[in-house]
């Protein structure tokens, strides 16, 4: 997977698009079994990646899920 992109977060917890500042929508998660085992969720056997789409500019952001 593509990694852990950095982004600002709105006061209500929405990711702000790094391209246009729009409020992104978190619509998917996937287990990354190739990620660093030290960061893996023991129950899920990998790192949970989450995916956010920006309705304004279509950018998709990927980041590791926060506990």
């Amino acid at each position, binding site marked *: 997977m593509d990694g852990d992109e950095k982004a600002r977060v709105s006061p209500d917890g929405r990711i702000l698009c790094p391209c246009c500042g729009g409020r992104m*929508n978190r619509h998917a998660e996937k287990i990354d079994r190739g990620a660093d085992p030290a960061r893996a969720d023991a129950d899920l056997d990998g790192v949970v990646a989450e995916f956010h789409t920006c*309705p304004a500019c279509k950018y998709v952001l990927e980041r590791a899920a926060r506990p």
Partner: protein
Amino acid sequence: MSAQPAPSEKPLFIPVILGTPRQGRYSEHVARFVVGEMTRTPGVETQLVDVRELPMPVTGAGEDIKDPGFSELCMRADAFILVAPEYNHGYPGLLKHVLDTNLKEYIHKAVGICGVSAGGFGGTRVIQNMLPVMRELGLVTIFWDGNFSGVRKLFSPDGALLDSSYPRRIEKFVKELVWMAKTLRYGRENIALEP
């Protein structure tokens, strides 16, 4: 009850990926025909993407060899059409190699597959073989396919379609794909995973 946002009025962008680099490929006629049909579909923008033209090294794989231009196109896409010839019942290796270079760009987007074969089964076996790959890439398949049988006799040497039944068949395929693309775009933009 909270107001729902209106469905996006932006045109859908649905590129057509020609999945084989071989010389003399008949699939190019199929891909150009499908692009023509998509161009006539209201509210849809399209573009032919030829895997032969993508700069993909074969000594690496996956997101390590992402091509920025192709990834940007996939990010912009709302859905995809894959034109896949059936080679020994499977899909072209280069098509898989190209598709594997992205992931986040595909998630919760629709895909329709046009199978191409010299024989009479319209690429059904390549389509079936691609379905689990589509799922793993996060793409959402539709339940219409494009089936192009006997492709060597289906087009003239200069690419003119010789069977008048195909435009109607592809119209049905496109309608289903557009519906799925709109539905998934609404979902990607407005419906969040439960916390």
